[in-house]
């Protein structure tokens, strides 16, 4: 018998007593009166920031005002942006502006998933990550978020919350472990 079949056979033989799958939608979860406020307050503790685009303002204006001396900037939210065929080519990106599909109020995460996975590495290689999210694409909790996600669509997706961080040295929180050193969420 193959390893696969012998493992499955042993599991079948050792199965614990059958129990039912609970209905995770039957339980009321937390709701936020002002989800943006909850999101923005939380992300500041997680090494990020959140702003709402004012009338007449563009994403590029906000980014330029925040980082006037930015190096290589790649903006995936505009048509005709640059493309590469090797994920390593993003290694010196300073600011990446990427579309975010969904924001979650309870933990200040943004769901990113791109039809072209050549861009996958840019989320993590960039020094500063700007996530652009439609104002109305905000949900309260992760349960609501998963209800809106189609995993089969792109084969890769991530919830990103603030900047990369670690506390592995004496529990001191340090921003900028391997991924982005700073994160900015712009609601448009």
């Amino acid at each position, binding site marked *: 018998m193959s390893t696969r079949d012998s*493992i499955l056979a042993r599991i079948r*033989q050792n199965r*614990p007593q059958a129990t039912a799958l609970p209905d995770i939608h039957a339980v009321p979860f937390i709701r936020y009166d002002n989800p943006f406020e909850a999101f923005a307050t939380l992300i500041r503790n997680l090494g990020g920031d959140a702003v709402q685009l004012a009338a007449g303002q563009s994403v590029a204006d906000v980014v330029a005002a925040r980082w006037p001396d930015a190096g290589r900037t790649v903006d995936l939210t505009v048509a005709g942006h640059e493309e590469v065929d090797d994920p390593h080519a993003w290694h010196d990106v300073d600011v990446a502006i990427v579309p975010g599909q969904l924001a979650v109020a309870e933990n200040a995460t943004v769901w990113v998933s791109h039809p072209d996975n050549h861009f996958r590495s840019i989320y*993590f290689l960039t020094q500063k990550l700007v996530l652009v999210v439609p104002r109305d694409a905000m949900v309260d909790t992760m*349960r609501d978020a998963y209800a809106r996600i189609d995993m089969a669509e792109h084969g*890769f997706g991530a919830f990103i919350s603030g900047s990369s961080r*670690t506390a592995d040295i004496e529990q001191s929180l*340090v921003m900028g472990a391997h991924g982005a050193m700073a994160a900015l969420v712009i609601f448009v």
Partner: protein
Amino acid sequence: MKDDSVKHPQAAAEFLKDRAQAKWHDSAIWWVRQKRDAQAKQLPEWEELRRLAREIKAHTLSQLDDYLAQFEANAQKNGVTVHWAADADEHNRIVHDILAARQVKKLVKSKSMLTEECGLNPYLEQRGIEVVDTDLGERIVQLRHEAPSHIVMPAIHLKKEQISELFHKELGTEAGNNDPTYLTHAARANLREHFLTADAGLTGVNFAIAETGGVVVCTNEGNADLGTSLPPIHIASMGLEKIIPKLEHLGVFTRLLARSAIGSPVTTYTSHFHQARPGGEMHIVIVDNGRSDILGNEDFYQSLRCIRCGACMNTCPVYRRSSGFSYSYIIPGPIGSTLGPSRDMKKHGSMAFACSTCGSCSNVCPVKINLHEQLVLHRKKAFDQNLLPTGKKMGLLAMRFLTQHPALFDLGGKVMRKVVPIIPESLTRHSAWSRAGRDLPPMPAQSFKEQYQQRSQNKKDKQDKKDKEEQQ
């Protein structure tokens, strides 16, 4: 690799010799436990989430073979190659075969307790493959040639001065610069080079979704993501208990994991891997290594619900005061103390005795594993299999005799309360109690039983008096 000849009491005594560091270890970890509590209080549905998580996992284990087969079929549909490993050796062989066939020279690894369990690093290194652990804590213990002392905070046993010295020697950082930000960013620069030049990346798995055939990996550093989006090969090693039925169930587990683990609302990156990066390939190795045997054990199979958050370690008064290195199994603390003896009672039996049965681990466990009850059952097993040191066995037999004869127990207490206060200190200084730097506690005038009886009598007298007054 972990030394499985460790006996908990001796190793803990060794750790406690450096009193200052032991005290720091205790308080650093307790701080994480407090952060966990603060997070739990912010969600009114916290206890409901724990119940749901427990029930989802219990259900999944009861149909694990079906869910694993479903997972495999869906992963294959996504173009992922699925492998099965009966034990650690087979797992290591499969990983090596994949790497060797593609002439991989360098592998970047994200944190995985399973590969520690299997001893993958030395296996690959002996075969000429450079393995770079990329989680900062894991990298630190790798450079020190140590195993992680905690499953979420691998280097929690070290002070920044020790890490500064290590980095000075290994990475050429400034001597004496102990600033955690400086040290972290030095490691960042060094590891980035490794990410950009690696031929393959390996990750663990936090959750595997049967419905979609993909795996989820949670990190704060982004190392799993760099390690899988840059090199062309991604290998994910998963214990077969990591399965959950549907994508929607992640909404329960991703809410519990980081809050329980580090007191944070979520990890920075919660990444869902269903396909290789363009031009690459993705492999998933499903590992048994004793898990299907535990599944068949009525007393202990609940431990397979574990999502490896480490909350039980952070709350455990014994773990905090003895460190992860005093446990023989690769996973320390309460969960390791039930998994270890379930695997091999002879090697890991002493772990189950490193427990005060306070029950705090069971109270914080996000999937409600009855940890302290399992530890008591393991002790019984160790006793029945005659695996205890003679002194401990005799002590337990004496205690059993005493508790079975209440009159003798009372008398013993009475004698102790009279005799202990008049024993000269020179005689007790070398007792097991005093050696650890403790004074003998003052003896109470009455036993608990006497105090309880008196209290009940007082209450009754009061009630009688009240009744009498009302009658008059």
